[in-house]
């Protein structure tokens, strides 16, 4: 039997994901988050785990490099992959928000400059409201953009709002709620139907035991 490949997002949701897998009885030898290894195997359930950057998980799954993936809804919204989004695993909860200095006018004359790790999500949000924007794609420390004058506002995920406050920023508009999802490649769902369903059921069981 060949391995079923699971792509797991590094970072924010990694620990909770590994705990969930462990609860479901899926254990990977030598697995710890700090390791530099990127591929791990569970030979009992024949699952191969690959650790990839969160934003890349939808790409791996859409292109079939991984059969299934565990990743935040933020990255799914941003990448808009053609995949099945079968379960809401409910951990890693936060939400998208527009943030900036309090009192910033979102309806100003001319184009609003928005810095974000999520340019597509930002574009969609402001498009719906008919506000013209220019997006600036950043890969980290997004909160800095309004402070330095690079952008009027930012679009980012907010958990507690602590980082925003520390940088003198505040939430101007709440956007979609985010949580962690189980996604599946559409072809794997069909051609590896049994393997995929067994995995989903195992995961569901582990998940029910936790919650």
């Amino acid at each position, binding site marked *: 039997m060949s391995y079923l490949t699971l792509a797991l997002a590094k970072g924010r949701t990694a620990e909770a994901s590994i705990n969930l897998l462990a609860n479901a009885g899926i254990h990977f030898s030598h697995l710890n988050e700090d390791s530099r290894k990127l591929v791990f195997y569970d030979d009992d359930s024949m699952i191969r785990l690959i650790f990839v950057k969160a934003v890349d998980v939808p790409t791996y799954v*859409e292109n079939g*490099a991984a059969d299934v993936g565990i990743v935040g809804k933020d990255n799914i919204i941003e990448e808009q992959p053609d995949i099945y989004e*079968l379960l809401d695993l409910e951990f890693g909860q936060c939400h998208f928000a527009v943030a900036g200095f309090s009192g910033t006018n979102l309806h100003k004359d001319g184009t609003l400059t928005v810095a974000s790790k999520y340019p597509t999500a930002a574009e969609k949000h402001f498009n719906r409201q008919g506000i013209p924007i220019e997006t600036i794609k950043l890969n980290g420390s997004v909160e800095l953009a309004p402070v330095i004058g690079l952008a009027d506002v930012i679009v980012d995920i907010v958990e507690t709002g602590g980082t925003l406050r520390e940088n003198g920023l505040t939430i101007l508009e709440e956007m979609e709620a985010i949580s962690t999802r189980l996604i599946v*490649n559409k072809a*794997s769902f069909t051609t590896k*139907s049994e393997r995929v369903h067994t995995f989903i059921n195992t995961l569901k069981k582990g998940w029910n035991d936790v919650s």
Partner: protein
Amino acid sequence: MVFYQNGTESNGHTAKLLLRNSLLPLLEQRFRTYGYIKTSTSAFQDYDLYTSVTGTVPKNEMIKTIDPSGEVLVLRPDVTIPIAQQAAFSDKSHRRQFYVQDVYRLSSEKNRHEELTQAGVECFGENTHENDAELIAMAAHLLNDLQFSQHRIVISHAGFFKELLDQLPLSPEQTEQLQAMIQSKNMAEIKPFLSNLPINRELAEAVETIPMLYGRPEEVITKASDISLNDAMQQTISNLNTVLDVLKAYGVRDTVVFDLGLINDMDYYSGVIFQGYVAGSSKPVLMGGRYNHLTEQFGKRMAAIGFGCFADYLLEALEKDGQPPKMERPVQVAIYYDDHSTSHALATAGKLRDDGLKVITLPVAHTSEMEPPSLGTVSMTTDHNVLNHGNKHSEFRTADELANLLQLEMRGD
């Protein structure tokens, strides 16, 4: 000078050769065995044809050009629409047609022009379950020919979801949202979405169940019957059931899976929809369905069904899994001759070609490395005329004698 490179893979040219010389003939042969006749369409099409007719190619993916009179043309982005137009305008056209033609698209994702080979079939004027099953069975037969380690045909019906959609009070934007959620089987978000709508529980539950109407055909049919709300939905299910019966008779029952959550291109399809998946590939390798309304846009009502595949993607899929088609060796016999034997050698080659053999002739002085011919190498000099095949060396005098020797070789193979 920088040459324009179409495609980024360095083996693009080799792949196209393999495509044209082995995969496409194989597909064509299979289409012909179902009684389909080869048709073709112009590479230049009327832009308005594609923008006014509901199709499956987004406008921004079409490559436009302008003719001298100022008319906007588009490089054929799809083959089905012009074929359907031809069929609608001509009374004498054949019911069963296939095509192997290049289509041209602007891929925004890859930011380049794409020239892809599409192969497919269209059948006009028949609106029966047997006809639905014929096309699905042919698709399964084709994937079977290619010897993938596993292949599946996923079948749906455009009518089932459309019927539900008609009863939902949705704005165009909400319709789009709901379709996206169903297409991604996003159960977690469908429920809250529906609970915000002023609809009864029965309807909400029916919509919620759609993404789960997946798997063994019999099970899906039972589950779908349970949630069906009216005669039209019940009719759709019984249609699918009849198609399934015919598919069983074709012997492809184990290849098919039902998935009523497959709802792509709902404005285009009017009946069965199907997609072919193979092991090792992340995207469907072929897709099709019934589109009875398309020719209405050309002013004629005519039943129609078809399926097609991108041969380039099929070849990529074959390279990962299955049995990539082997390219037939282009040369069966190579004849080498010296200065004094030119006319004898060329006359001999002519005779063999009349017999249908693939022959090349080369003067001895200019021999170069080549792939060994499949039947043998012939050497013709003033002293000797010899056919060499492996360790065997057979002398001959006349072209007829050589032809006989080659006949024996062919039987030996």
